[in-house]
């Protein structure tokens, strides 16, 4: 009988990471790119907490996960401010059409 072990959690983390990168590189909308980044950060958090649980590192993994959550909140706020500014200036947030720097 298979019990949920470290490998199970790591496989979930791998799948979530790949889905996040897929979202980042295929979606046009900048807000969707942000959602992909949140998925990637969540998969990293699952990794940290899984190793904290199964690796006998104490609670350091959980502390790092808390720090990552704080940084994700800061990142989302700043990225949305940037997205709003881009929308105000170019009235468009499709990442493949914002190429005015390309000349």
């Amino acid at each position, binding site marked *: 009988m298979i019990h*949920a072990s470290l490998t199970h959690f790591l496989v979930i983390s791998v799948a979530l990471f790949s889905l996040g990168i897929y979202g980042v590189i295929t979606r046009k909308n900048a807000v969707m790119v942000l959602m992909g980044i949140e998925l990637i950060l969540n998969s990293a958090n699952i990794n940290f907490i899984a190793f904290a649980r*199964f690796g006998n590192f104490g609670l350091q993994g959980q*502390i790092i996960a808390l720090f990552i959550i704080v940084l994700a909140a800061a990142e989302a706020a700043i990225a949305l401010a940037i997205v709003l500014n881009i929308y105000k200036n170019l009235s468009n947030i499709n990442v493949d059409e914002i190429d005015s720097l390309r000349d």
Partner: protein
Amino acid sequence: MTTYDLIFYLFAVVTLLSAFFVVTNRNIVHSAFYLLFTFFGVAGIYVMLGADFVAIVQLIVYVGGILILLLFGVMLTNKITNVDIKSGTIHALPASIVLGLFAGALGAAVLNTNWKVVASPETSSSTASLGSMLINEYALIFELLGIVLLIALVGAASMARR
């Protein structure tokens, strides 16, 4: 198959299915709501790993903060009245091929590694020890993160108002 395993697979399926819908759904608002289920599933996985405090923080910060922020971003940057809320994808086929290979390689590496698992002692709650760690060993990082968050939020607010 114990109850633990059943609950684990339930949370895993919820997380991965909703994450899949997040990245494939064409409607951004639907994607944001699927993201809600992904965050719930990840919080459940944290609980399965014995990280109760992190799970609650995940719910409060991600569901209560970041998701609302993302929804505000969607609402403020799309013409709701003109039903222009759909978002296309680019390079979907090559991206899925490359990422399938990438996920396969990463998953094979995970599955073939002989992880040295040490069963950590079962703790009833991690909140008290996390709190004492935050104000003892990690006090400097804790304070610095507070400053970073303050500056980031003030900067974001002033940037978005301009």
